[in-house]
């Protein structure tokens, strides 16, 4: 099971946080601090796996963003790397050549995509096309509903 997924920039600014277990705000803040310090301190060509408390932390850097995924001890680290990569691919397909700014300005979309890919700390759909289709359909639903329901009264 995955415990949490964090995205942060090279300066340590948080861009996305997804928690798969209930935690208090204080704990979350502490974990974010710990993760950013640990991951940002790593040498460029070192191993992508870290040990933190009783969890394994898999991190990967894509352009200016660090993707940091914490999994339980018995999970497979290499497949976790693939999970991160799959998420980046989904974002890329959706935004078209995704960059950090896309995630900053459309953070809620990033969350929606994540929620179509992972649920409760596990993968829900292993096919890229299926996930993309679901997102597009939900977006369509949102637009049509909005157009239908809330015509702006100008």
């Amino acid at each position, binding site marked *: 099971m995955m415990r949490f997924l964090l995205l942060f920039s090279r300066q340590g600014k948080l861009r996305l946080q997804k928690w798969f277990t209930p935690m208090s705000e204080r704990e979350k803040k502490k974990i974010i601090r710990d993760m950013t310090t640990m991951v940002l301190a790593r040498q460029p*060509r070192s191993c992508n796996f870290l040990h933190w408390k009783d969890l394994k932390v898999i991190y990967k850097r894509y352009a200016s963003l660090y993707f940091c995924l914490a999994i339980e001890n018995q999970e497979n680290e290499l497949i976790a790397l693939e999970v991160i990569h799959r998420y980046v691919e989904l974002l890329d397909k959706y935004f078209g050549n995704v960059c950090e700014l896309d995630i900053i300005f459309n953070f809620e979309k990033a969350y929606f995509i994540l929620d179509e890919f992972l649920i409760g700390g596990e993968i829900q759909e292993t096919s890229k096309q299926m996930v993309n289709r679901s997102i597009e359909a939900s977006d369509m639903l949102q637009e049509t509903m909005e157009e239908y329901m809330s015509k702006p009264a100008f």
Partner: protein
Amino acid sequence: MSPSVPLQEMIRAIRSARTQCEERGVIQRECAAIRAQFRQADNGGRSHNLAKLLYVHMLGYPAHFGQMECVRMIASPRYSEKRVGYLGAMMLLDEKQDASLLITNSIKNDLSHSNQYVQSLALCTLACMGSAEMCRDLAPEIDRLLRASNSYIKKKAALCAVHIVRKVHELGELFVPAARSLLSEKNHGVLHGAVVLIIELCEQNPETLERFRKTVPDLVQIMKGLVLSGYSPEHDVAGISDPFLQVRILRLLRILGRNNEGASDSMNDLLAQVATNTDSTKTVGNAVLYETVLTVLDIKSESGLRVLAVNILGRFLLNNDRNIRYIAMTSLQKIVGTDHNAVQRHRGTIVDCLKDQDASVKRRALELSLALVSASNIRSMMKELLLFLSSCPPELRAHAASGIFNAAERYAPSQRWHIDTMLHVLITAGGDVRDETVPNLIQLITNASELHCYTVHKLYRALLLDISQQSLVQVACWCIGEYGDLLLKGDCQETEPVQVTEDDALDALETVLQSHMSSPATRGFALTATMKLSTRITDNVDRIRSIVSIYGSCIDVELQQRAVEYNALFRKYDHMRAAVLERMPVIEKNSPGHTNGESTGEAVKDVPTAKMKQGEPLLLQQPANQVHRSDHPPGPAVDCLVSGLSVHAAGTAGGDLLDLLGGFEPAELSPVLAYDKGGVTLTLSCEKQSDTGLTVTLTASNSSDSDLSSFTLQAAVPKSVQLHMKAPSGDSLPARGTAKVTQMVVLNNPNKVNLKMRVRVSYTRQGSPFQDTVQIDSFPGLDSQL
């Protein structure tokens, strides 16, 4: 009401803020506007406001006032508002918040909504933050969805069920039938969810595991389909068909095959197929191979398959990718206990990884290398480990040093090699070794009597180079003090001869004494070593006297006391000095019955040669111990034998040994002859006093033609036995056995160890002193176990 600033504008405004203060200002303004908007009635921009609030929350600012808005939004009929509302619920509400209960009803309604995307929102939120009560409430709904809905909903419902089972274990039973039937689905998403659910159910309940064992053939079929099928565009990742599902199924097979011969047998072929067919050029392939290896090693697989698995790990070790090397070593670490020989084959690669740049890889390689050391490869492994020690990162040094010591102790091919290795470690990493290293090394050195000359020369040279490593300096000082005569003699077969003068040796010790780098313990070692040299050198005794008297006024109390006592040794008991400072006997190895006397620090001051800072078991005391007792009050009660020997000594008389007068009690059982040499015989008899107590009576008589004077007996016993020597009857043994000397020894053996006693006999015959030792292993009238 003017529309509020859209989300993107706000984000831009926040990002353009140049200082933290400015940013806080922008955010406060926005939050105020959002709060005002929330209080208003329904308007079109609600979702934007909540989204803005969520952004602010991600930056780390408080957003709890948005919780009720989330609840309202979830209940709204509009999809856009529901979407943001549920997102807000997942971010702001968790099971600890009270407001989370309010959304239970909304979720229930949405689970039966006509639109599948609304259903999916509800499922996702429930799986993310559902509390135990919510789970109990909604479990039947989830079960219904698991059976009758489209695959889009089924896969989400399956993972929702996983969350429910994790939160409320008892509900597992509810989902077992549905989970079983889901395995026949074709949709990969649903299959994946089903496998995860079954894994969770099996891990929770061993009976469920038994029931699901019957699904092994089905799972094998599915896997075969995945591995052998052609290219499938939907699920392909770098040539592997749906690696995520493959890994999950392998995991389930692992759980089902563990400790079960039947299930393991049915998987053997499949696992072999996966292991050989999977392409390992990309990470994905390696991920599947890794999972396969873990499964093979965990179930009851046949040996051929195990060897295949270990070989895969060996191949991983040679991979260019650091990640792969790292996980290979973690896996090898897990099996080094059980498949030791298989792992040994890859020893060379593992040792090479010690030189890797990455710290995590180095750590793994170190642990694995230490686990692989054996009697046959000790020499080559030690070379590599010592090389590693000199260049390893500081956080690994202590671990490496203690690992090297353990390995050296277990597999040392020769004493000289062992001493060399320990010295090397002390020179390289002396600051990181544990405290017991010093007494252990000292004990090792005393045991290797033929190497004393070599050792002291080596240590002397090391001392000249560097006096900052405390453990090394302590051992070196001790050796120079003890074997100074060998050092000064100069010739030694094992190393090149170097001429060391008395001044050189004393200079070295004085440098240690005066250096600010030396710890107080080290300076204590150096001072005592200096003192010991006074009997081993001939010319510079005055220099030693002056050094010792200087430290008589040292601030450090320990050094001061030592110096004062050594001074006394020079002044009043000069004739005793040789005897006091003579060579120490071989220290016996620590056995479980021995305790290290920590507080020996105090009592041992009286006996300069007993250098037991961290407790070496001393089995024999030096003779003049009793003399000092008269001048100084006895030290604190110690496990050590000092107290046993001197507690009952009477006052001194001149420079002679104590006048040992006292009565004696007749022996109860038939006496046994313990010692007979030079006309002196010693018999002993025992009387059992209690379950652990014993009284031994030693009787000495002299059948030679000359009188013996100053006759003393000293006894030593194993550490856990308590010894009490009563005053002897006299100290002179007239010739031809006209009178005897008896002495009673009371022993207490609470731990019931094997009782042994070593007795030292000393006397003066016609003006010349004589000493001898005898070991008594069996006591008459006693069972072997006292």
